[in-house]
């Protein structure tokens, strides 16, 4: 049950969703730090037309409890 953090540095100004939780009503805005479970964590940004346009995966564990990543563009963007 341990938790760590992921700090997302870019793309600035985009809302970020964790592990496909696209219905999250208050997604944090990049740059931000997120509290996450140990293990793999998928970070994505979504366009107004509900397509994923940036994505990154952060693995958080005991050795690396606090990870910093920049999301990479998804080209072409993908439907949710």
């Amino acid at each position: 049950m341990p938790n760590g953090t992921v700090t997302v540095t870019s793309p600035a100004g985009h809302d970020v969703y964790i592990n496909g939780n696209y219905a999250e009503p208050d997604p944090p805005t990049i740059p931000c730090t997120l509290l996450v479970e140990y293990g793999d964590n998928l970070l994505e940004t979504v366009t107004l037309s509900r397509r994923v346009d940036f994505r990154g995966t952060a693995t958080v564990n005991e050795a690396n409890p606090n990870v910093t990543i920049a999301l990479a563009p998804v080209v072409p963007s993908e439907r949710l």
Partner: protein
Amino acid sequence: MKTVSRALLVFGALALTAITTLSLTSCAYPVRNQPIATLAPNQGYRWANLPAGRLGDTLVFVTASGGGTRAAALELSVLEGLQQIKLPSGDSLADNIDVLSSVSGGSVTAAYFALKGTEGFPELETNFIRKDGVSAILLAGLNPVGLAKLSTPKYERIDLLIDYLDKALFHHQTFSDLLALHRRPYLVLNAADMVDGVPFAETQENFDLLCSDLASLKLSTAVAASAAFPVALSPVTYKDYSPCLAQAKVPWPPPWVTADAGSSWYDAPERTDRGRVKTAYALGARAAPPTLDVHLLDGGIADNLGVAEPFRMLTTNEPQPAFLNSVAQGHIKKIVFILINARSFASSTLDQSPAPPGMLDMLFASIDAGVDRTTFGTAARLRTALTEQFTADAANLRKIRQGAMADNLDAIRNNTHLIEIDFDAIANSACRRNFHNIPTSWTAQAKQIDALMLLGKALLAQSPEFPLALNAIKGHVAGSLPNVTDACAIVPPS
């Protein structure tokens, strides 16, 4: 779940033998869940499709354990107590429950409350809690029509309970009827997957994995799945329609399942295990080995408190609802968690004789040991999550200079109120034993019910966290709540 009516169990075993013999030639089993046409977060009975809570930054959870009529009555008493707590808006706390998660006997009261609200309390008590459900079910199963039905695979032993619940309370209403009410609480009925031995929360997110529509599911069927006591009743089987066209239009398996399953088992064993089970549901016929049907038994086998799903909500970022980041970001500032545990602890004389225990005693021991272990384990995990975990997370956040988030976690820890309703909180040992000895059955003596209907409210009022929770939500008690002595005075001796 202890000492569930032995009559029902013996009936179950006999019926099982007879029916197996009679129905070997046919495979027309009942289909209880329907496929879904579209997987969309804005459709179906989902948390996000219910209106926002009226308490803003406060989340109110109620969980209710199994325990037959004993559990149903204790939960009703607590809900009546919450109805007496008035908020500044004039609403009661019962009207502001965000999440109601339950198991087995607790699921009857939970589902009926979600459907009818506080107005349904008298009906629930009259039409279910004070009825002799065991006799009704046995009569339905043992009359010629019932026996004829049971001799076909289309009608299973669990249908006796489903029919009884429909007749007494639910009248074939479904989750779409709950959705149409457009109000919280968000109802989570919990069963156990008998193959994987894990909790199965009957939510649309889990039904998505089966490509199935929760909204069309009868509440009676969902409650029965949560209450399908092993052997006495047959499991409720949901068909896994995966893979299906609806899933082909979205990333599949869903990202949250892939992230869980893809995590290293060394980093996050529980998460990885959870992801593997859900991947098997999501792949359905394409899984290796294929998952074509999910057989559900009484949720008490895996989590007799109904805590597993709220625990997941508070400690993960999985979809809907998941509150870990909402807590860390400070969107949620207070949590009131009411945990109702109607676990029995029936006295036994087995250890006073050298005679080997009989078959039924051994069967009950094998079921009850598992239930007791999961009950203890899940309650402890919840307490840890609400206290130690947030403390550890705050310390880690301070290390990386995220003081604001750390402050949020410290604040939520100080503003979390876990109110435990448990027979173990009764100080008087004779009284405690009398409540512990109320059997798990779909029937109870009138005086036992009278006592339980006082005890839930009394234990609510007695909890040291109760005044703190009242203060946090600025609530007050309208009238007075009974005390435990009142309940002890009328509970029949065991």
